[in-house]
Structure formats: C-alpha cells, structure tokens
C-alpha cells in the first residue's frame, strides 16, 4: 500500500517551558474533510476510517464509488457529476491508475468548455495532490482509479501487517 499522509511541523517559541516543536499530521485532522490515507490495487483507505473498493469519486465531505473501468473509458457521462455540482469545483484531480494511461483529449476539451480545470496524473501522485489541495482549502474533487503497478516500501509492508495483526508472522512472499 502506498501512504500519502502529510506532516506539518509547527515549532513553538523557545521561550516556552516546554521548548518543544510540535508536529501535526494533516490526515488526522478531521476538520479538513476526507483525505486519502493509502491506496492499493483494491481501493483506497480514507482518513475517516472507511475503505473504498474500486474507483472512487471523492469530495471533501463525501465519497462515492465511480463506475469506470480504465482511464480510456472516462466519458462525458462519467464526469457529469463533477460539473453539475454546486458550488462549482475549482480543480478536478483525475488519477488514471498506472503511469502510462491516457485520458481521451476530447474529454479534456469538453471539461475545458465546462470551465473545470483538470489535473491528470498517475494515481500515486493524484492522491497526494488531492490531499494537499484539500488541506489548503480549495474546492477540489478527486476521480481516482486504483493503480495495478506501484512502488512498495518496507514501511508499507510493516503497516499492512500491523493492520492485519500479524506482525510476528514471517512471510516469504508478503502480500500487499
């Protein structure tokens, strides 16, 4: 699983007794709306504890399942939700899954006519982009397709094991 939490360090003044710097994890701040904690082949884990399976359409206050197969299958109908919303969103972050996938240029043109800015990128980076655009307070929506290929770090394997409560088990082939 890839992890997309963000850390903000807030140093306190040294005149204080505590003389400590504080750190807040953006994903744990519930006032910012729903953020994406991690992603995998199956779906996404969100900051409110939910797990969403499959492609999702994510908004600051809600998340919906999205009926789309791959990035090429995105058509006007699948994006119709985003431009009919009120208040109008500033940016739509589209996560196309794996890095090579393309969104058809007719759709890009179509969304330009509807005055919705698009930010198309692989899902790994799209999740992080959605997170910090939301944390900044901009009106942003995310349309994310789970990737099938992504980089896994040791930390990801460890946190998955911790979640599945089998940290003590030694796995020859760790399944993520």
């Amino acid at each position: 699983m890839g992890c997309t939490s963000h850390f903000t360090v807030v140093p306190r003044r040294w005149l204080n007794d505590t003389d400590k710097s504080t750190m807040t994890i953006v994903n744990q701040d519930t006032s910012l709306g729903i953020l994406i904690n991690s992603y995998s082949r199956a779906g996404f884990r969100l900051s409110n504890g939910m797990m969403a399976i499959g492609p999702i359409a994510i908004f600051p206050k809600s998340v919906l399942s999205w009926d789309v197969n791959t990035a090429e299958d995105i058509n006007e109908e699948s994006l119709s939700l985003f431009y009919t919303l009120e208040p109008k969103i500033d940016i739509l972050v589209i996560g196309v899954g794996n890095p090579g996938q393309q969104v058809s240029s007719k759709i890009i043109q179509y969304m330009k006519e509807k005055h919705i800015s698009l930010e198309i990128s692989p899902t790994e980076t799209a999740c992080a982009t959605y997170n910090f655009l939301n944390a900044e307070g901009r009106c942003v929506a995310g349309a994310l397709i789970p990737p099938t290929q992504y980089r896994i770090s040791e930390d990801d394997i460890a946190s998955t094991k911790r979640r599945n409560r089998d940290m003590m088990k030694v796995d020859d082939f760790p399944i993520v």
Partner: protein
Amino acid sequence: MAASGLHLLVLPGKCCSSFLPSKSPILSSNAILRYNTTESSPTIKKVDAVATSSLMDFGLYVAECMPKYVQKVQIVTGNELEVLVAPDGIVPVLHFLKDHHQCQFASLADIGAMDVPSRENRFEIIYNLLSLRFNSRIRVKSYTDELTPVDSCYEVFKAADWYEREIWDMYGVFFANHPDLRRILTDYGFEGHPFRKDFPLTGYVEVRYDDEVKRVVVEPVELAQEFRKFDLSSPWETFPNLRTLPAGTEEDLKATQTGPAKQ
C-alpha cells in the same frame, strides 16, 4: 608592463599591499596596474588562443566519436564549447560524454530550452554539462517542435528529473520515458505554457478573492491601464571604449562542418 605615477601595487598571492608614494616605482612582473596603464581595457575578456584551440580539438574529437548524431561543433563567446546533435542522439551523446574516460562530464548543471517560433523545430533543448575531473564545461544542444517527444535523459543523469519537468511545464516539450512528468511551477489548473513566445506577458487569466462566494476565483485578465512598452535605449553612447569592436560573426576554421562562432 611599465607605468609611471604608480599609486597602488597589488601582488597576487599576498593579502596586503604596500601603499607607496608616487615617486617610487617598485614593480614586479606580475603586478596588476590600476592607473595609467598601456594595456587594453581590462573589462574585455581576453581570448586565450591556446585554450580555445584545445577546446576545439576536443569538440572535433567528440564529433569523430559520435559521427551519426553530432551535426555541428562550435565555440561561442571565446571559450564555450557547444555540440549540436540530432534529437535521436541526445541520450547516446550524453551517455558518451558522461561515461567516456576522456570526457567524464559527470555533472549535469542545467537543462534549458529556447523558443524560436520562426523555425520549423521551434524549441531548442540545451544541456549544460560540467566535468569535475578535467574542469571544463560543454553544452549539448538539440531541437524539437511542439508535438515531437524527446527522450528523457533521466537514466543518464538523475538530476534531469526536475529540469525536464520544468521544460514540460514551461514549453510543452514532452519527454518520453520520464518517471514522473507533471507540472512543477505553474498552478494546478493552469493551462498554457508560459515560456513560449506567443504566451503574453500578462497571461490570460487572473485570480482574485471574491467575497460573495468566499473563494478565490479565476477570471480573464483585465488590465487597469494599457500595456506600456518602454523603449530603454538611451540617446547617449554607453560604451565609448568598445566602439571599434566588431559585431559577432561566425568564422569557419576549416572546410568541415565545424568552426568557432561568436554569438
């Protein structure tokens, strides 16, 4: 170097200079004179002919080693070597310059681009390399147009990552096989490529905070006054000492495709 009326004597290598009265002419052969000098103006860079010719020899060597891709070798402004290559040959030539024992240009200093709309291949991609072993620099230039992708040199120089992202963002040149090609300097919903010559200085959109909707909104740009173009040329001559210097010319050293050029 002879002089009279010497006020200050500066010897290189020593941090302090002795302040002599004007009548004592103690000079060392490598003194730097400040006043009453018969030397030509010190503000013009001297061209070292030996260094230039050895640089040219090296450029010809590179052209001999990579004859398929190197189209031209030139020396600009006296001491900068440029190798002009075909776009297919960018990665092979960079690989050669980085790994070959006689070159060892292991440091990628910069990748830039230039937009010349009048040309068919309007964008010029410019790679600046530095060799720490031999203390020398080289420039590799190539070209492309708006639609043709260029091979990314990320596998040769990891530093090319963000430079190529910048060129994609600012010019719209697509780099194939780049690990993560996305915008780096412009805002998230930004459309257009700002460094192109046909992109206006003021841009197309402006942002403002709208109190009614309590958000930052994006609107077409409206200038409060007409755009003013200042003519900054002065009626007075600014460099009288340089009156006799010739304008930049391109000189061919040999009948081959190489030659020094002042641009």
